[in-house]
C-alpha cells in the first residue's frame, strides 16, 4: 500500500491566510498578505489618499477597490446639500479623491450606495476564500462568506491602496460552536449577543472567531453576516463561517459573482476551505442554541446583555471589581435600577438599521411583526435600509407601506442612528431599542441610552412601547424567525 502523507490539519482561517502569503515573515517579522478586496468610505480614507498624493503613488489595483458614502449621509432630503460642514467636506473629499485616482464610487443617490458592509455582499464582491479589508471595524461582517475580513486604520488604508498588501502577524483562532435549533422568535442577533455576554468584550482579543455547529449552519447568509458583524464587539480581529450551499446560493448570479467555468473552479476550491477534522484551535467556546431566548443589553458595552425575560442585574453580585464598577457606572448612565424586569423598561425610540441588521431579510422580519399594527404612542420608530438597493427591494415588496402604516419613518440608506454622524440622533436621556451593534455611552447621540436587540425584538418593542419579545405579542408565533433560520438565498 502506498503511504499517504497527510498535510498538517488546518483551520479555515489558516487556509485563507496561507493562500494569500506573498512573503513569509522570519524571526517574528510580519507576513506580507495579499488583499483581494478593499472597501473604502469617506471617514477613514481622506489622509490615506493624501498620503498617496504626497508620495506620488497611484492606487495599485483600482479593480480591487470600491468606495461608497455611508457614515455621514443624511437619510432624508438626500437631494439637498448636506447641512453639517464636516460631513459635507468628508463626502466631497471622497468624491474628489475617487475622481482623481479613478476609484469606483457609489455616491448618495446612486442605486448601489449604502453601508459599505451591505454593498460588498449585495454586489457579489464578497466571496469565500478571499481577504477583505476596510477602514472600519465591522469589516468582520464579510467573514460570513468564509472570507478573512478585518478592519484597518488610515495608514493601513494607504498601505493597501499603494501595495494591495499588508504586513501582518497571524491571528490566533477560536472555535465558537453553537449546536441545536433556535426556537421561533430567536435569531442570529440573539446568538451573537449571547456569545459576547459569555466571553466578554475582550474575550476574542487577538483571535479570529470561527462560528460553527448546527445552529450556525441553519442560518441564512443575512443571519451569518449579523453574527460575524459583531465578532468585533467580542474584541476579535475577525469572524468566519465556512462556506456551504447556503453561501453559494446567495452568491450565484450576483453582479460580480464568478460565472461559467470560473464559478465551477471557485466552488471546487471553496469546498476545500472548511476546517479539517483534526485541526486544533487555540481556544474553544460552546453555546446551546436550544435554550437561547431573545436577548437584550442593559449596559453600555455589548457584553452587558441578558435574556429579555431576566431582570437588570445587581452589580453587587459581580465578583470582579472592575466588572462591578463598570456595571455600576453603566446602570447609572442607563438610569436603571437593579432587579427591574427588562420587560418593564419603556423606550422613547426604536432604530431598525445598521450594518448588523439592515438587509432585506432583516426588514422582512421586522415587517412580519408590525404588519397591520400601530406603533406605541410616544415612541419614535425609524427604519433605515442598509443600501439603496435594499430600500428599492423592500419597496417592491410593500415593506415601506407596512412601515408607514405602522406609524414609523421610512428612510434613505446609510449608517444613520447607528452612530449619529448625520442628524439621526437620540436626544439626551432618550432610550432606544436598536438593532445596531454598539451601546456605548453617547454612541447614538449625546446622553442617549441604547439597548441592543434583534429586528424581532425591535418590532415587538415598537408595538408595546416597552422592551418586548415577539413572544409577548400573543400572536401566532409559529414560524417566527424561520426566515433567519433557514437557507435564505434571495439572490
Amino acid at each position: 500500500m502506498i503511504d499517504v502523507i497527510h498535510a498538517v490539519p488546518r483551520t479555515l482561517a489558516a487556509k485563507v491566510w496561507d493562500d494569500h502569503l506573498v512573503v513569509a515573515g522570519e524571526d517574528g517579522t510580519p507576513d506580507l498578505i495579499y488583499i483581494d478586496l478593499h472597501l473604502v468610505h469617506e471617514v477613514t480614507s481622506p489622509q490615506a489618499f493624501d498620503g498617496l498624493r504626497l508620495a506620488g503613488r497611484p492606487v495599485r489595483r483600482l479593480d480591487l477597490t470600491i468606495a461608497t458614502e455611508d457614515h455621514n449621509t443624511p437619510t432624508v432630503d438626500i437631494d439637498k446639500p448636506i447641512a453639517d460642514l464636516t460631513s459635507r467636506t468628508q463626502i466631497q473629499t471622497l468624491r474628489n479623491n475617487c475622481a482623481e485616482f479613478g476609484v469606483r464610487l457609489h455616491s448618495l443617490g446612486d442605486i448601489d450606495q449604502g453601508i459599505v458592509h451591505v454593498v460588498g455582499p449585495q454586489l457579489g464582491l464578497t466571496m469565500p476564500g478571499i481577504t477583505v479589508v476596510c477602514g472600519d471595524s465591522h469589516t468582520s461582517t464579510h467573514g460570513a462568506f468564509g472570507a478573512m475580513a478585518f478592519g484597518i486604520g488610515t495608514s493601513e488604508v494607504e498601505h493597501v491602496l499603494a501595495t494591495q498588501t499588508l504586513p501582518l502577524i497571524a491571528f490566533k483562532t477560536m472555535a465558537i460552536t453553537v449546536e441545536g435549533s433556535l426556537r421561533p422568535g430567536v435569531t442570529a442577533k440573539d446568538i451573537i449577543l449571547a456569545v459576547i455576554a459569555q466571553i466578554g468584550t475582550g474575550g476574542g482579543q487577538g483571535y479570529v472567531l470561527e462560528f460553527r455547529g448546527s445552529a450556525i449552519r441553519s442560518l441564512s447568509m443575512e443571519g451569518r453576516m449579523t453574527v460575524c458583524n459583531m465578532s468585533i464587539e467580542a474584541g476579535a480581529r475577525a469572524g468566519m463561517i465556512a462556506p456551504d450551499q447556503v453561501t453559494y446560493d446567495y452568491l450565484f448570479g450576483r453582479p460580480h459573482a464568478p460565472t461559467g467555468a470560473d464559478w465551477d473552479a471557485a466552488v471546487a476550491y471553496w469546498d476545500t476551505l472548511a476546517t479539517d477534522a483534526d485541526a486544533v484551535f487555540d481556544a474553544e467556546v460552546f453555546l446551546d442554541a436550544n435554550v437561547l431566548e431573545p436577548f437584550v443589553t442593559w449596559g453600555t458595552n455589548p457584553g452587558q446583555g441578558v435574556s429579555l425575560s431576566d431582570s437588570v442585574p445587581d452589580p453587587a453580585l459581580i465578583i470582579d471589581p472592575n466588572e462591578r464598577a463598570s456595571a455600576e457606572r453603566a446602570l447609572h448612565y442607563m438610569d436603571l435600577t437593579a432587579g427591574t424586569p427588562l420587560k418593564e423598561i419603556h423606550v422613547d425610540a426604536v432604530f431598525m438599521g445598521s450594518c448588523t441588521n439592515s438587509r432585506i431579510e432583516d426588514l422582512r422580519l421586522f415587517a412580519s411583526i408590525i404588519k397591520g399594527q400601530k406603533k406605541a404612542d410616544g415612541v419614535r420608530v425609524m427604519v433605515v435600509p442598509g443600501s439603496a438597493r435594499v430600500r428599492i427591494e423592500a419597496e417592491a415588496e410593500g415593506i415601506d407601506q407596512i412601515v408607514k402604516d405602522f406609524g414609523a419613518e421610512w428612510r434613505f440608506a446609510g449608517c444613520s442612528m447607528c452612530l449619529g454622524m448625520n442628524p439621526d440622533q437620540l436626544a439626551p436621556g432618550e432610550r432606544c431599542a436598536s438593532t445596531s451593534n454598539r451601546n456605548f455611552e453617547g454612541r447614538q447621540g449625546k446622553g442617549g441610552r441604547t439597548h441592543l436587540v434583534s429586528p424581532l425584538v425591535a418590532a415587538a418593542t415598537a408595538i408595546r412601547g416597552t422592551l418586548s419579545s415577539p413572544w409577548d405579542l400573543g400572536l401566532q408565533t409559529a414560524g417566527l424567525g424561520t426566515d433567519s433560520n433557514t437557507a435564505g438565498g434571495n439572490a
Partner: protein
Amino acid sequence: MDKISVVTGVAVPLKRANVDTDQIIPAVFLKRVTKTGFDDALFSAWRQDPDFVLNNPAFAGGRVLIAGPDFGTGSSREHAVWALRDYGFHAVLSPRFGDIFRGNSGKQGLVAGEISESDLVALWAAIDAQPGIEASVDLVAKTVTIGDFAVPFLIDDYTRWRLLEGLDDIGLTLRNEARITAFEEHREAWRPRTIPIQPVQPIQPIMINDGAGE
C-alpha cells in the same frame, strides 16, 4: 519618501521642556481631511504670542528644530509630525522624545535625533550668538554642526537606514514588488474585481446628487 543624508537650514531654538503633541498641534485641527496644510496649526497657541521664537524674523524658514527635553510626548496623533514637516522642519533634536512621536517621525521622513543635555545648552548658546545661523544634520556621520561646533546625536540604526534609503512602510513593502507581481500573476480568475462594472443591472442614478461643494 525622499532619501535624506544631510539636512541643512536655519536652526530654531525651542527653549521649552515637555512639549506634548497637544502643544505641537491642538486637537481642533484633527478634523481636517488632508495630511498637509498643517503648517499654520504648528504650535498655533504659542504663535499668538509675538515673542514666540517662530515669530522672530531671524528664524524664518526654520528647518532644524532644537528643542528641550521630552519633546513629542502625549497623544499618538501623526498630525504632530505632519505639522512639523509642513512648516518646513526636516530634523528635530532633543535630549528625549515621546516614543510614539519618535516612531511616527521615522515613518514620515522627519529626523528625530537625541542629543545630550549639555550639548543642547551649547547648541542654544551658538544660536543665541548668531540668530538665524544654519545647522547641518548629517545622518551618515550622526552629527549636528553649527558653524565649526559639532556634536553627535543618537538615532536607531533601523530608522536611520530607512531615512537614508528614503523608505516608509509602503516603500519597504514595495521592495517586494517583484513578489507581489508574481503573486498577482497567479491570482485565480474567479476572485473579485470591482471593475469593469458588469451591467447585470445598469447603474443609474435614482436621485440627483446633493450637489455639495459644487
